[in-house]
């Protein structure tokens, strides 16, 4: 089993153009991802934003409180219209007051192709073996609770 990369394949029942705009338009991306981004995606440029607060559920909002408004950013890598979108980020870099800029990043790639019944999306995140293991343990700790609560909320919001 590799410890360096994660790969996901998902068949989306939507036209490729629709999926492409949901991924490559920063406003749409933020809607499902759960962030508020400050501008459009431009290849080779950093994009900044914040983890969005929720208004969907007061209980979960309370759990999620520690992560509300946390800075979020990544560097757009490649934009190949209707085919590929990629960025580099610091996985789970949501600890306040920590300078992540010197640390290694992982590369996240979204690849699209038309398939029977919709669009096949392949998402890979690679480069984990370069992330300091202490950081990975930290990410693990931080991810328990906060992100899961947020995930439930966003799903509730988009499906509700």
């Amino acid at each position, binding site marked *: 089993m590799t410890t360096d990369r994660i790969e996901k394949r*998902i068949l*989306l029942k939507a036209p490729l153009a629709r999926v492409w705009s*949901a991924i490559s338009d920063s406003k749409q991306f933020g809607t*499902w991802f759960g962030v508020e981004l400050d501008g459009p995606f431009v290849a080779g440029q950093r994009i900044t934003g914040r983890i969005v607060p929720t208004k969907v559920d007061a209980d979960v909002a309370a759990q999620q409180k520690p992560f509300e408004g946390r800075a979020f950013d990544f560097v757009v890598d490649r934009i190949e219209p209707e085919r590929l979108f990629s960025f580099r980020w610091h996985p789970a870099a949501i600890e306040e007051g920590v300078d992540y800029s010197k640390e290694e990043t992982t590369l996240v790639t979204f690849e699209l192709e038309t398939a029977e019944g919709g669009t096949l*999306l392949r*998402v890979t995140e690679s480069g984990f073996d370069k992330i300091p293991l202490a950081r990975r343990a930290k990410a693990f700790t931080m*991810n328990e609770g906060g992100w899961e609560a947020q995930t439930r909320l966003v799903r509730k919001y988009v499906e509700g």
Partner: protein
Amino acid sequence: MRASTAAPVFAALGDETRLHLVTRLGREGPLSIAKLTERTSITRQAVAKHLRVLEGAGVVASSRDGRDGRESVWKLEAKRLEDARAHLEVISRQWDDTLERLRAFVEDE
């Protein structure tokens, strides 16, 4: 695996020499400190020190070599490494959740 038990494993592995030792034990099976020191520029003392850190995190364990009974041999504790790999599983599940949100978003029309 809880974060509290995962963290020492990651911390112990967060060093090139220790990763190297773990890799060799994984590839070659139980080894003595003498064997682990062969063909490296690391001293026996340094290897012993790193092994103790790994032992503290439960990544390796030592036992007496039954063949000559004089020197300790060190072996990997596979279970702890499997636990460490579980970290990637957590990120993997987050991607599952994230992509379900994307699905809800693009299929909702």
